[in-house]
């Protein structure tokens, strides 16, 4: 365990013992108990995967552990509930974000289908004949939708295209989803046709021929467009894709195919990949999906800011770790299900108030805020207070977001700033606000402060915009009467102002007065927006308590960022190397003592091999390696085998056993080498140097 954990969150001694005992079966790659002693804390990161189904192995029989187990089960239950909620919310958000573009694409598909049909609807014999129907030069063009995903990682959008396919299918189109794997040079154009036929005809046919598709289309009632979706054209083999396009363009009147292609980078991508004769066949249209930033904002809003799960870091690993280490996290279940009578529920879960208090007093936040009474009522009160404060915080953050939305204020930045307890505690925010009013200050100081930016934006708004904004605020703050009242007040003021100004506009005024009145109106609106700005400033100051400043926040706030970071970065190769070299710490077997450095035959083969490989340079002679491996495996008595003299020892050994086990040793050797190659520590011998394997990893 990283030492930082002890500082931040309060694992009790029981808890620590528990984790030490029971962590091991959960590791994919096991971790030694004393590992922290010889390694820096920076290197301990490893993705922990907990096998939730077998979540409670009972190693020790004492009662406390049993209790812990029970608690653990509850926690895991809570985890699953919370996580499933988060997951479904994210999915919903992503779906909603795409609906606009999807319906856009769908109308375009139907439009282009109509255009194709207007060129002529061939009869059955015509549609299946081999020679093309030529009407005019434009009739060979293929309608193509280029969907810009705005994200270099095409992997993120695989699901999007699947959804798009489903959406179009639901609207009655024939849809086939192709990926770049269908457009490889190896399979040629036959490969993509085959997968196309497989998806449309539900059967695989040996010579994949497009005329089959034509007859199939005629046999279906040919009133629906055929949509072919290609996920990522950047990865497609250009020549195959262009063959495919040329072929489709020959048949476009007979089979009204509409292509939809995902473009991860820029519109230049098709230009770079396809030759001009294929490009000529395309009649491209452009669609844009939401950028990753927009999606992120939407997810942040739905999962973190809005009450979704009550949890603050929406990452699965964080979530798991939190539930694993935090005894009180069961309460989240109640938070998520939004019930008020918290305490009774908790008691139902088998946590007595005393236990809760014991845990609670270990929270640093509660030591700061002194609570006197240890009753369940006060506990309930504390929790409801917690909830109330959080709601306030939410409302203010959303207000700020709405303010800055048009001006590229990103919710993520806003969120980061809003949950930062330091700026709140130090009152830094207030000073910045003052600095804001002083225009002389350099912009670099202000740049990072998104909240200030949003507040400044309020000042610049015109009356109409202000009205809109205030209405939005009003909606957002419905649950919080204090803020809502103020917003309403301001809104009514604005309405009065509006009425006045419109009246003024209507009345015929002498010309010399108009300028002054205009000036007045401007001044009025100025003062109004100032008022609004003051309001939001005071909202930020008074109601936006960062979560970490609220007592009990440890229940739902995961703060051990270092751990999360380590888990995310991962350092697999290093980990594997360490585990191979210091396997005793993991296996804890009796046969190999960790104290001696000698290589013993009882050790794991791969481990022996890797240790032996340490003695070589970047090239390892396979024969030498094998010989030394063999000598170690064969001689159980020798302590440390000198590598220079493996042969005499071997002769000394039992001859029959040697000849008999020769094959098995070779097999073990081969397996170990393969394992090393799979783990990426070794490169297999090349054709040029068949006797040498190449070491890839050096040092840790």
């Amino acid at each position, binding site marked *: 365990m990283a030492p930082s954990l002890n500082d931040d969150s309060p694992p009790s001694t029981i808890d620590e013992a528990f984790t030490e005992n029971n962590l091991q079966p959960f590791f994919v790659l096991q971790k030694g108990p004393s590992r922290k002693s010889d390694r820096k804390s920076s290197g301990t990161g490893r993705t922990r995967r907990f096998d939730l189904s077998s979540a409670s192995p009972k190693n020790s029989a004492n009662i406390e552990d049993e209790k812990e187990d029970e608690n653990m089960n509850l926690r895991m239950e809570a985890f699953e509930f919370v996580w499933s909620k988060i997951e479904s919310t994210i999915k919903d958000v992503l779906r909603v974000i795409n609906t606009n573009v999807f319906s856009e694409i769908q109308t375009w598909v139907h439009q282009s289908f109509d255009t194709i049909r207007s060129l002529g609807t061939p009869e059955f014999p015509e549609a299946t004949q081999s020679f093309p129907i030529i009407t005019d030069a434009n009739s060979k063009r293929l309608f193509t939708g280029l969907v810009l995903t705005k994200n270099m990682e095409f992997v993120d959008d695989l699901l999007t295209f699947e959804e798009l396919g489903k959406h179009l299918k639901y609207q009655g189109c024939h849809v086939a989803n192709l990926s770049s794997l269908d457009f490889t040079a190896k399979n040629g154009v036959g490969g993509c046709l085959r997968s196309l036929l497989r998806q449309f005809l539900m059967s695989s046919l040996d010579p994949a021929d497009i005329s089959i598709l034509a007859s199939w289309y005629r046999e279906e009632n040919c009133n629906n467009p055929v949509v072919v979706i290609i996920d990522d054209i950047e990865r497609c083999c250009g020549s195959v894709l262009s063959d495919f396009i040329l072929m489709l363009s020959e048949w476009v009147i007979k089979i009204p195919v509409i292509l939809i292609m995902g473009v991860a980078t820029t519109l230049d991508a098709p230009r770079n990949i396809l030759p001009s004769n294929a490009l000529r066949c395309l009649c*491209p249209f452009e669609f844009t999906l939401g950028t990753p930033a927009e999606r992120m904002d939407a997810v942040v809003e739905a999962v973190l800011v809005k009450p979704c799960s009550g949890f603050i870091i929406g990452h699965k690993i964080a979530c798991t770790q939190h539930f694993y280490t935090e005894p009180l996290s069961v309460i989240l279940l109640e938070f998520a299900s939004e019930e008020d009578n918290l305490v009774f529920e908790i008691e139902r879960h088998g946590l007595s108030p005393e236990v809760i208090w014991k845990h609670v007093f270990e929270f640093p936040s509660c030591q700061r805020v002194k609570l006197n009474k240890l009753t369940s009522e006060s506990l309930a009160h504390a929790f409801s207070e917690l909830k109330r404060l959080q709601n306030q915080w939410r409302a203010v953050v959303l207000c700020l977001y709405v303010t800055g939305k048009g001006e590229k204020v990103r919710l993520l930045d806003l969120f980061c700033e809003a949950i930062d307890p330091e700026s709140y505690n130090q009152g830094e925010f207030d000073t910045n606000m003052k600095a804001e009013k002083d225009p002389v200050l350099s912009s670099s100081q202000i740049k990072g402060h998104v909240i200030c930016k949003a507040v400044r934006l309020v000042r610049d708004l015109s009356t109409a915009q202000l009205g809109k904004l205030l209405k939005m605020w009003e909606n957002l703050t419905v649950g919080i009467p204090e803020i809502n009242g103020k917003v309403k007040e301001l809104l009514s003021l604005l309405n009065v102002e509006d009425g006045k100004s419109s009246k003024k506009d209507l009345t015929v005024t002498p010309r010399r007065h108009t300028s002054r009145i205009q000036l007045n109106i401007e001044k009025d609106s100025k003062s109004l927006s100032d008022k609004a700005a003051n309001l939001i400033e005071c909202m930020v100051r008074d109601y936006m308590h960062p979560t970490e400043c609220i007592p009990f926040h440890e229940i739902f706030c995961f703060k051990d960022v270092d751990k999360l970071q380590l888990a995310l*970065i991962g350092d697999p190769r290093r980990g594997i190397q360490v585990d191979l070299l210091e396997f005793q710490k993991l296996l804890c077997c009796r046969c190999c003592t960790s104290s001696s450095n000698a290589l013993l035959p009882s050790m794991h083969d791969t481990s022996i091999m890797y240790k032996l490989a340490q003695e070589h340079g970047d090239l390892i002679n396979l024969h030498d390696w094998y010989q030394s491996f063999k000598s170690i495996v064969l001689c159980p008595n020798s302590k440390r085998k000198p590598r220079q003299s493996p042969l005499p020892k071997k002769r000394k050994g039992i001859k029959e056993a040697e000849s008999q086990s020769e094959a098995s040793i070779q097999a073990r050797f081969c397996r170990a080498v393969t394992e090393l190659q799979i783990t990426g520590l070794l490169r297999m011998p090349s054709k040029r140097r068949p006797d040498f394997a190449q070491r890839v990893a050096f040092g840790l």
Partner: protein
Amino acid sequence: MATEESPQVTRRATRSYSASNTAIESTNLPESYKPTINDLGFRQQPLRLEDLLSSFPGRRSQILELLRLLGPLNSPMFPILVYGGPSTGKTSVTLQVFRHLNRPFIYSSCITCYSPRILFESILNQLLFHRKDSGHSYSSVKRCERPSDFVNYLREALENVLTNLKGNSGKVSSKMSGRPDGTMVYLVFDNLERIRDWDKSSTILPFLFNLNDILKMPEVGLIFISNTSPDTYYLNIGYVEPIPLYFPDYTEDDLRHIFMANQTNSRLYASFLDVVLRPFCRVTRQVDELAAAFSSLFKKYSEPLSDKEVAPNEEMKRRLFSHIRPHIASALNETFQVRSQPLLKAETNEETKKTNSSRMLGIREDFDKIDFHMSTSAKYLLISAFLASRNPATLDASLFDSTGVSDSRKRKRKASEKSMDQKEMAEQELLMKGPGTFPLERLLAIFQCITSLAEDSLDEEESHELTVEGGSRGLMSDVLLQLSSLCNANFIIKGGSCPLEGSTRYRTAVSEDLALKVARSLKFPLSKYLYRR
């Protein structure tokens, strides 16, 4: 009902199917179409010669020549190779000539038939009047992969068809019944140049050219259509070379005639062509390219007009010309025009308006923003790949080693004539070679250098991230992932392995523009590190 039928028809059934063929179709597929001998013709009203000639402006001599080579009814012919640039009317003319003559022919395009098997089977299917349908699970009439099998089947099928044709020509006047004339069958092979890319091109091409001799049937005529000239095919293996028939590119006048056909407002379109045709002809004479460009340009041209039917006068023409002129230049350079949906565009316009309406500091940044998302380390990696590709490897030390930078720059001597020449030669050579390749190690080294430099100059969050905990070790594992996704996006191309070192080499395909944009988004002084020759 067709789908119900299909599972019952097994493979074996399809193989021995020719006997039961008619039975299945007549009973189970009432709506299915049974092809007859009529399908070998064009199946439309035959064209008169005048109509044929007038529908193809500028192709008069070619049509007459083709008619002459095909000869009168029932006369044997030599193979013909029709060739010429893309979009010069080869296929259309050939097909319409057959429509005019109303003779039976078999057409197969080598684009659609992308392998010998499909080519053979498609020809046999047509000759044996076979349609693929769900009734026999879309199988071909015969399985045929080898040329020798093909010849046997083809001969069989042709004899069958010929007797059919002969029998029918005796009976009724063919014009009335829609049956094709004569007792010749013509095989048309379109897009012959594609065969050269096939695996078995070395055997298939001579085989096709030789088909006439192999079949020894005077009733079969062969016509090849190709984009490339005959020189690219003949291998001197001793077969009768087909008679070449060249389709030259259209002249400007021909193009005018072509585009003037079927225009509703011919006067307006004529004035439009006056403006655009000449500049475009200098760029391309391919009808399909021009048609695509003109259709959108004409929309712009007639935009200011309220009444599209009006015949323009001189003054109006001038006005329209000044309106269209800026669009012509841009359209000339653009072969691939991407249109976006009007609805979507309106939305984005609104958004941009919104941003413009208020005063924001960030607007300036919009111009040089890359319009897709990339992670910071991917950006740095792309820049380092760009540098590795552009700069010679020998310069790396002086560029990235802080001690070596200044003095290498100062040492500039006046170059002699000879060295100048040499330099120019080297420059041109580099231009021809394109961006250089580099091994992974060099890329990572440069990446390390520029990320550490960025730490010094920038106090941004990303540079902090890079230094988190023990240098960039944490980052490195991610870097290889980023590299693979850059490869996926075609920004970095993974080349073959170097014969000397045995390791994979990479190169970048990004333009300097994009690299500069990326650098700007990181505030990285890319131009300082680019070696200018």
